């Protein structure tokens, strides 16, 4: 991938950590929908004399993530002040990490089988989030506003920034990298990874290789709020740079914003400011020294990695790669699947039902698997009834719908559908067949006189019996019995 014109992409991802309180003070991090400036205190408002104290859970979460990525955790790190003036930053500096980040190195695997490769990670560090600005102009745009309003509820919320090496080659790879990282933070339980809510924000550095294979001018692209937006923005930006180069122009080093509605990246107006952040160690914060045993403890708390789990689903249970990918996308869904198999479910049948039925319900109701009303035990029992032939697939789906919509346990749902007796066979089934045969004498006549070459009319009779039996009979058995009656008389 070193040929001229090929793209080189590096990603900087900010992950909001799912702690209850902020990075350096005890204010709540629950800012979505909160009344402006309610989750604030002298520390996150930057009042003189206030002192920051680091939140232990933030360190736990970040170390856990670093370990999952195989990064080297720094036992001795420190915080710097990154100085710049902007009203969303009340102290006029952001507390961040600079020369000694919490972790360095490591990688994140993407792709499958032979295509699988590890995208190397440069560093992982901690920093605080900024407040939110509301601009006064009618169109909400900064440039047209006479003044702005600031809400500091988000200011000081913990962020973990993960920087990749510029070794991502295509927009699709970038998308997968972000998807895998999002999945990872969800498995680790350190963030909800929601891009639309802004709990996971992606900035991309894009350049094209020059004729001699060296890296071209780097452009930073921001403001991509979904995986699809990320992929589209990168495709657009790579095309734009190729066009600039093709016309003999120079690519400008700048920051560009993705405009999702118009499908373009836009440069910021005016001259790009050369940033001069004047980093220096924050004298209010002592160095961060991890207690002995801390990293080992986090290692002990580490769940199985999603990519390991996916492989296990394939090798242990014979699931297709696609089934395994879908079922391991969310940790809760994977736990549900494992719960079913532990209860004795046939893995292939369970995978099939979860993918078609359970996921349909989750999508329709927009609920996470944690709120799914059918327990793995009941779900497995239902599948077992299908397996044994006690319930037809059609009836089982009706039972399933009742269990979901009414929150009924399995026996109650079966009872409601009048399917209580379980499998219908023997004299009871014969009685139903005889009843149908008496009713459908015309059809029987036609079949006997050879007017059913394709067996459609036989199928119709079977269908009538199955309906009468509320789906509880074995369709194969019904067909056989009807066939015997038709052929013998």
């Amino acid at each position: 991938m070193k040929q001229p014109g090929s793209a080189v992409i590096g990603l900087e991802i900010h992950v909001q950590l799912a702690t209850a309180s902020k990075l350096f003070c005890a204010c709540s991090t629950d800012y979505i929908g909160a009344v402006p400036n309610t989750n604030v205190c002298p520390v996150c408002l930057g009042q003189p004399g206030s002192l920051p104290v680091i939140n232990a859970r933030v360190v736990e979460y970040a170390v856990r993530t670093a370990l999952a990525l195989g990064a080297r955790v720094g036992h001795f790190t420190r915080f710097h002040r990154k100085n710049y003036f902007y009203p969303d930053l009340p102290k006029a500096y952001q507390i961040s990490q600079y020369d000694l980040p919490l972790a360095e190195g490591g990688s994140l695997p993407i792709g499958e089988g032979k295509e699988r490769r590890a995208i190397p990670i440069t560093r992982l560090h901690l920093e605080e989030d900024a407040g939110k600005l509301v601009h006064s102009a009618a169109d909400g745009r900064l440039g047209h506003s006479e003044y702005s309003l600031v809400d500091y509820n988000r200011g000081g919320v913990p962020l973990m920034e993960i920087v990749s090496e510029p070794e991502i080659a295509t927009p699709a790879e970038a998308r997968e990298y972000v998807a895998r990282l999002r999945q990872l933070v969800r498995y680790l339980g350190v963030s909800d990874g929601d891009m639309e809510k802004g709990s996971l924000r992606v900035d991309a550095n894009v350049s094209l290789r020059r004729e001699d294979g060296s890296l071209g001018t780097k452009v930073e692209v921001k403001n991509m709020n979904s995986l699809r937006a990320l992929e589209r923005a990168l495709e657009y930006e790579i095309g734009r740079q190729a066009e600039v180069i093709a016309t003999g122009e120079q690519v400008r080093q700048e920051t560009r914003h993705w405009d999702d509605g118009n499908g373009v990246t836009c440069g910021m107006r005016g001259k790009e400011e050369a940033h001069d952040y004047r980093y220096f160690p924050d004298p209010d914060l002592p160095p961060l020294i991890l207690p002995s045993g801390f990293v080992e403890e986090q290692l002990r708390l580490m769940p199985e990695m999603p990519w390991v789990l996916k492989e296990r689903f394939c090798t242990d249970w014979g699931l297709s790669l696609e089934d395994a990918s879908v079922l391991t996308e969310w940790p809760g869904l994977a736990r549900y699947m494992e719960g079913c198999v532990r209860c004795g479910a046939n893995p292939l049948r369970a995978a099939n039902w979860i993918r078609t039925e359970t996921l349909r319900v989750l999508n329709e109701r927009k609920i996470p698997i944690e709120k799914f009303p059918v327990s793995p035990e009941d779900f497995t029992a239902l599948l077992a009834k299908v397996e044994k032939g006690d319930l037809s697939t059609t009836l089982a789906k009706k039972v399933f719908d009742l269990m979901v919509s009414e929150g009924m346990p399995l026996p109650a749902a079966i009872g409601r559908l009048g399917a209580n007796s379980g499998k219908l066979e023997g004299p009871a089934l014969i009685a139903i067949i005889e009843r149908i045969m008496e009713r459908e004498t015309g059809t029987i006549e036609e079949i006997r006189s050879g007017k059913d070459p394709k067996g459609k009319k036989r199928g119709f009779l079977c269908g009538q019996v199955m309906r009468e039996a509320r789906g509880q009979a074995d369709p194969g058995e019904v067909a056989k019995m009807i066939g015997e009656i038709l052929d013998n008389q």
Partner: protein
Amino acid sequence: MAVSKEEVRHIALLARLHVEEEETQSLQRHLNGILEHFGRLKSLDLENVDPFAREDLDVTPWREDTVVPWDGREGALSQAPRREGDYFRVPRILENEDE
């Protein structure tokens, strides 16, 4: 390592300070005096001294992840130069930070 007039102007800009031409000169002298002092510290032999040494610190003090609401919000808002409802109001933000 002396500070030039140019650098004084740049630092003033970063700090959002308006500096008159004649002030530039005195600031330049002032800043150079500070640098000279640190230059003298540099001449000390600190070969075997840990730059982050803190005698009193083995482990970083940290706090549990618990929420403690603050009741001074109204005071903070009302003492701000300008407020609008629940918000702090700030003057027009210039997108282009250069002069």
